[in-house]
């Protein structure tokens, strides 16, 4: 603490100067904003993947097909982009344009992406043809999780530092966190951070075996919630040191004021009863931001709508905020759970909450959870918002929290 304070003059503040997103509720930041403000969900029946579960699941699919994405991005026809890479590049490109970056190498720029499934969408279609079909073989090298990042880096011209994180559903929040830390340490001047995940049979069936997929639209924080809807998407933020952003005369969308990573160390998939990992992540993020709990105006919760997550997260929120619970909502009812991308998707929504001075509604909520009694925001709520907390938790106990501020 002491150090943070005394070093404040030399440690640069990290700002958001650009954003890009593609999700079930739209192919741009503007489209996502419109849908959020109109309380318009993107969850519906699955159309792009042939699965026997089609009748019994609902998902948040991105409207564009792979062909449409390829043509939008003007990629050559014989490319070996997976859907994860296409979504990632589409959103990252918007973020760079949104930040009005004309020459990517005018400042020392990095790319930190994240994914859980990597190239699985192509692998699961081609696995059994890998040994025989030359058309399939191009997807052998695109399977591993670093592939989409490398493709995005190459397209954007980021030649120096890039890396990929994979901490399940908290991945993109960790990418944002590393980006901010690298700028603060003076190792990068600008960094594109976020995550991407495409829907895949692999994850649909995986979550199905855990019996946590809802047949209906998901109901985060509701007593009768029946599980999550999977989604797909990608989102990226451009982070820069405040000094450079100001020098370049850029409009500052938000400040990255706090972040933290903790591990629940309880179970490979389930969250602990007292939400210890989530509690620590939120508390440490508040400490770094030097904010008191009551200064948080809105929480974009992880809220997957599984019985376990929402109860555990509610308990952790109560432990941090006591009886003074800020307005909170989960936006998973709009997009579904976009896994590795979720942290970045929701960071974009948190910046939009700051820009629009609006807390977005938690769709499909009807009755409060008996044990905790927490009631999320259920309608568009205009109010002064200075600080937003965004939570992301994943398998393996990985819990991360991010605080975005207006000033």
């Amino acid at each position, binding site marked *: 603490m002491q150090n943070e304070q005394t070093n404040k003059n030399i440690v640069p503040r990290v700002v958001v100067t650009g954003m890009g997103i593609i999700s079930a509720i739209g192919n741009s930041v503007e489209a996502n904003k419109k849908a959020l403000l109109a309380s318009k969900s993107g969850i519906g029946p699955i159309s792009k993947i042939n699965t*026997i579960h089609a009748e019994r699941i609902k998902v948040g699919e991105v409207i564009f097909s792979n062909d449409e994405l390829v043509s939008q991005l003007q990629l050559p026809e014989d490319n070996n982009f997976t859907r994860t890479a296409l979504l990632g590049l589409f959103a990252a490109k918007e973020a760079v344009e949104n930040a009005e970056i004309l020459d990517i190498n005018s400042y020392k720029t990095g790319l930190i992406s994240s994914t859980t499934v990597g190239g699985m969408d192509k692998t699961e279609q081609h*696995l059994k043809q890998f040994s025989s079909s030359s058309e399939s073989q191009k997807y052998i090298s695109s399977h591993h999780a670093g592939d989409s990042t490398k493709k995005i880096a190459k397209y954007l011209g980021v030649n120096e530092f890039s890396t990929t*994180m994979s*901490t399940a559903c908290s991945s993109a929040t960790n990418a944002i966190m590393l980006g901010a830390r690298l700028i603060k340490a003076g190792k990068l001047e600008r960094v594109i951070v976020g995550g991407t995940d495409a829907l895949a049979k692999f994850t649909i069936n995986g979550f199905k075996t855990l019996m946590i997929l809802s047949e209906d639209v998901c109901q985060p924080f509701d007593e009768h919630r029946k599980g999550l809807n999977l989604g797909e998407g990608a989102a990226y933020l451009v982070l820069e040191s405040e000094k450079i952003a100001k020098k370049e005369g850029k409009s500052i969308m938000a400040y990255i004021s706090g972040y933290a990573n903790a591990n629940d160390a309880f179970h*490979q998939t389930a969250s602990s009863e007292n939400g*210890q*990992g989530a509690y620590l992540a939120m508390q440490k993020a508040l400490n770094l931001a030097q904010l008191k709990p009551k200064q948080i105006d809105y929480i974009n919760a992880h809220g997957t709508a599984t019985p376990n997550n929402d109860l555990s997260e509610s308990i952790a929120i109560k432990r941090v905020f006591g009886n003074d619970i800020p307005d909170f909502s989960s936006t998973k009812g709009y997009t579904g759970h976009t896994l590795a991308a979720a942290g970045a998707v929701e960071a974009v929504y948190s910046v939009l909450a700051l820009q629009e001075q609006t807390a977005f509604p938690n769709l499909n909520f009807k009755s409060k959870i008996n044990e905790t009694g927490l009631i999320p925001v259920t309608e568009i709520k205009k109010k002064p918002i200075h600080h937003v907390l965004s939570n992301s938790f994943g398998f393996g106990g990985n819990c991360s929290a991010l605080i975005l501020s207006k000033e």
Partner: protein
Amino acid sequence: MRDCYIHSVVSISAQNTFPNEDFLLDVIKYNAKKIQAVYPNYKDFISPVVTRRMQTGVKMGVVAANKALQIAKLNEPDAIITGTGMGCITDTEKFLNSIIDNDETYLTPTSFIQSTHNTVGAQIALGLKCNNYNNTYTHGSLSFESALIDAQLLLQEQGARHVLVGGIDELGTEFVDYVQMIEANKNKGIGVPFSEGATFTVLSTEKKENAIKLQDIITISEASKEELILKLEDFLALNNMDVKAIDAIILGDNGDMYDDYYEHITISLFSNASQIKYKHLSGEFHTASAFAFWLGINVLQKQHIPAEVLKNSGENKSIKTLLLYNQCKGKDHSFILLKT
């Protein structure tokens, strides 16, 4: 800026490195295309109840991590950071094949749960009941290096005093064959066997007697050979040294056509340094460079370069500063500086 000291390093590899009593004295020579690591007797380290859901990578990782903590006399690290190129590929293949074979019916969750890239880091945290910082990188052959960069940053930010870092990859049963098939069809594909391993190290801000220092690390995604030389010189200058300071260099030669990057660097800058290569012993995999990290630390500590890894006829001088260089297909370059 605070220094990073290496308090322990443990490697499970295709060589008999885990007991680490002799230093690559009796190397195992392989003719096979794929080689498994020399596994420890897992039951000596973790109970079968715990290992019953673990595939090779998770078991190797947890055991190597525990031994690294033991040597460093550390109960609870301030952070656990892992890197893995292919993640938990065995369980990924298992779940994927059961989806295909059973047409999405009668699937069970275990292999899906264990297939996520962060399983090793999570299982270590779970075993230690460690609530601290926990992260996993998966960026091809820069996976371990990314984890090291994060660890170095945590120590320098004063966010941590002791960090556990590891690189893990397992062979798996299917994907590796496809990758090898592609390599075999190339003009000059990877020549060394494909393999697996787990290397863990404890980094600390505390200076211990004889502790090797992780001076610095840099990764570069893309650069021409000429740019690479300039960037490397900048990197050395940033660390207040020039090429003459490098006593030995560990190179990631794997027999493919991109080995000329190693040659170019050594001929241009390091003709006087001892040159070391290792992938004929460790095999190639995304985190094979973590084996080089283990090797470099041992060379510095023991002041000895085993004959089996020496590439040129090195002179018998003391080795104070060592540089690791790895790349993959002319991309994803990494330089790691180690010092006594």
